């Protein structure tokens, strides 16, 4: 029965993966500080961001995609198309709920949570696989640990970077003219750091490409088709940022007009460094939103500004809940498919 629907499900999966890439671009706010600086034309900022995210997705995402799409699983398990469909539906559903509740949820956490849920159900009801060997324990642990370490690392890196720049540079500026002149130089540094960050945002966006890689690793699509769709996903991420992302970016940029480009530069550089290390060295998918939030907290602590602990607490609750709820969603969904003989 499953094979009858096979081609249709593959098409659906590819379409969803491409749509997910579009939504990754549409929800990306990395370029907002650059738009707020007002030095460059808004369209140019969008194009720059789009190129960055597409470049990262097309050329640098394979490590993270292969972890999500293959390496995270144990030796006796391979994805089935219905597992992937459950993963995608569950991650999308949880993200939609998050959007309505107004909390920035991590699509990465919800994806890995969903994978966890379907793999458990598969191991228990389909593959008769020992739960201890259902996952590549080392990889799974490295992913989970990176979720705790990456935001904290973002906080520390931002704090230290700000303190160094403030001590040797910013504290020497005495007048508003000097500050403005200096900040206009930082605008170019901000441009470079935003582009750098965008590349790693694209490279670490495992959601869509992980699904495609899973299809490739199970032989559902060929290597050429996989690369073709990686390019298409990159293009759609670009389009998502350029067409739909502009509203979020414009809205956020209008709230950031008071922000100094040097602050934006430090935050973006820190988050980009964390993303780069996680992507290149460890090949683990992390949440860019969580890293950036903690970078902002690091900046606020360094500048002795107030931190919104209440908002942070709310985010923390959703952060903790994302993984188990996505796992439950996906698990139940896949169990539903199994009940109809769709493995």
């Amino acid at each position: 029965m499953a094979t009858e629907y096979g081609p249709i499900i593959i098409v659906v999966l590819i379409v969803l993966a491409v749509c997910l890439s579009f939504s990754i671009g549409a929800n990306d706010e990395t370029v907002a500080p650059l738009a707020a600086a007002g030095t460059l034309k808004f369209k140019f900022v969008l194009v720059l961001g789009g190129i960055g995210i597409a470049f990262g997705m097309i050329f640098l995402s394979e490590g993270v995609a292969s972890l999500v799409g293959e390496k995270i699983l144990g030796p006796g398990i391979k994805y089935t198309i219905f597992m992937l469909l459950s993963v995608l539906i569950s991650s999308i559903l949880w993200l939609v709920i998050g959007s309505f509740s107004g909390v920035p949820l991590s699509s990465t956490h919800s994806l890995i949570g969903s994978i966890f849920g379907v793999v458990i159900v598969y191991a228990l009801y389909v593959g008769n696989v020992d739960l201890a060997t259902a996952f590549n324990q080392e990889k799974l642990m490295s992913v989970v640990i990176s979720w705790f370490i990456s935001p904290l690392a973002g906080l520390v890196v931002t704090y230290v970077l700000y303190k160094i720049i403030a001590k040797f540079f910013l504290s020497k500026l005495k007048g508003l003219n000097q500050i403005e002149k200096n900040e206009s130089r930082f605008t170019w540094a901000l441009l470079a750091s935003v582009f750098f960050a965008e590349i790693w945002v694209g490279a670490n966006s495992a959601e869509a490409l992980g699904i495609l890689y899973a299809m490739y690793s199970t032989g559902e699509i060929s290597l050429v088709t996989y690369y073709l769709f990686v390019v298409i996903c990159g293009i759609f991420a670009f389009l998502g940022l350029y067409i739909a992302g502009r509203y979020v970016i414009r809205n956020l940029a209008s709230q950031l007009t008071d922000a100094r480009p040097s602050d934006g530069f430090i935050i973006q550089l820190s988050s980009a460094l964390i993303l780069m290390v996680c992507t290149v060295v460890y090949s683990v998918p992390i949440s860019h939103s969580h890293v950036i939030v903690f970078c902002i907290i690091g900046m606020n602590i360094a500048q002795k500004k107030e931190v919104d602990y209440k908002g942070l607490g709310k985010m923390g609750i959703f952060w903790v809940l994302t993984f188990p709820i996505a796992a439950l969603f996906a698990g139940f969904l896949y169990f539903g498919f199994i009940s109809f003989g769709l493995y």
Partner: protein
Amino acid sequence: MLEFDEDTLKKKSIDELTHLFMDSINEQNLKLIEGIEYLIEEDFDNFQKNLDYVIQTTAEVQIKKRFEKKIFKSKKAAFTKADRLKLFSKINDMKSIGEFLARKLLLYRVIFPDQEFKVRLEVILNSLKNISNNLSKAVKLIGTDLIKAHDICEDIKEERREMRKSEWALLTRLWNYDMDYLSRTFAYLKDLLEGIMMLADHIKTFSESIQFLSTKYLIFK
């Protein structure tokens, strides 16, 4: 009367235009104070001349227009734009208060009740002159030295505190004269003192906002 060449204004930076605007308004403040001093001396001609100057001078409108054009078009330093605009509008408010006081003072020619009142008013006017000049210095230092600007504003606040004591003492004296409280002299002197207080209070609030800017923009080791 001050007038500026449009081409000269065009060449000036946002900071230079702010300085020019501040100079123009401070000059009008000093003319107003000098005018009140003429009133104390009962030199009504010069009093009228000085106050007319305050009312009729419109050079600052030229600077304001040029400043607004420049700042709205400027792509540089978006993060300071709002503060630069606020700064400018606070200088502009000083003109409005000064002009309002000048128009009010021209409604009548008052004769002061006694010498003591005149002496005390002169002390207050002297303080007003000091804080106005200091404010002008502080505004000009915003571009180059926010720490100095902050310190000058502290002096302004201190002088304003002292001024307030003298003003209330003078108001108390005014209310205790054997005078009909509906008389024009009483109403005029009351308005004069309140007008001076209003201007001095604005200068104090302005200096506080300069201190806020120093706190906002300076980064200490």
